[in-house]
């Protein structure tokens, strides 16, 4: 529901991720964060206003 709503607001669904990691899954946590970081880097900064006025 959130990704559908964010899409209406112009936010790509790749900028949001839902995952479950337990406290004992340290390596898995690290790899998910690294993946997400790379994904966001490829998407580039989120410019909400892009030079529009009064945004």
């Amino acid at each position, binding site marked *: *529901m*959130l990704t*559908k*709503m964010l899409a*209406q*607001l*112009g*936010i790509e669904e790749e900028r949001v991720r839902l995952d479950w990691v337990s406290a004992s899954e340290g390596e898995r946590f690290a790899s998910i964060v690294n993946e997400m970081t790379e994904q966001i880097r490829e998407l580039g900064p*989120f*410019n*909400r*206003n*892009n*030079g*529009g*006025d*009064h*945004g």
Partner: protein
Amino acid sequence: MAKLKLGLYWAASCGGCDVAVLDVNEKILDVAEMADIVFWPIALDFKYHHVEAMPDKDIDICLFNGAVRSSEQESIAKLLRAKSKTMVAFGSCACFGGIPALANFATRADIMERAYIEAPSNDNPDKVLPQIKTQVAEGELELPELYDTVLTLAQVVDVEYFVPGCPPPVPLILKVVEAIATNNLPPPGAVIASDKTLCDECDRKKEEKKISKIYRPHEIDPDPERCLLEQGILCMGPATRGGCGALCINVNMPCRGCFGPPAGVIDQGAKMVSAVASIYQANGEEDIAQMVRDIVDPAGTFYRFGLSDSMLKRKRLQRR
């Protein structure tokens, strides 16, 4: 006691808030007894130059309705702020952006093109668009600049009080008038409504918040005694401030959030996403997918009156 000086103005507005003030009917005479209205375009013939000529802080209370989406609306908001001791954001548009804030799903260019060129009833073969400056034979004409983004009043000037509602219901307006007359206003920054959600005010029977299907309001015949959300109809009650008397609920229509977020909630839409997700009973991916399909317009429903006031404020702007 000297009469209070009262000013009212409308920015990107429909006039409903001004009519709501008139809807106090004979009590308008009580208002006239305690205040001199020095500016009110719907009812009185004062001009902008009258306001410009006033000393600063001459107006005691200014009830400003309508959202801000043009250079003229912003400059009048700033003018009235300078001339007024107290600014009140009156109505959902001034408080949260209101219905005009739905334009934040689009840009100025989108709106102008649709309104003046694309719309089927237009007769505009030369595709003429309004310009900020236009030369005519006799001289030059000026129009204000339309902004891409609709803003709330507080996003443009300091605001002391917020009176929500589309329009604010008459009992609430009378409460505000009473507070002004007896000099009994709450501390600045207050929203003059309830501090609880609409659910608290709503008389319907609430049993168990568990739904497995979401219906559009016309798809079922809802039981008038039971909570609408429990029957699967999206009702913004849990994410909306109370104080309206549950007017819409009492005519079997689900709340659409015109009183804005409840106290302590920063983003009304996010709150509603959270509320719906927490009551939905899904057995697997397909149930979830069906729920998402059944919520046909999440952003437009959960931010119906509050897009300007939301954390994101607008859809990501893509300039053409």
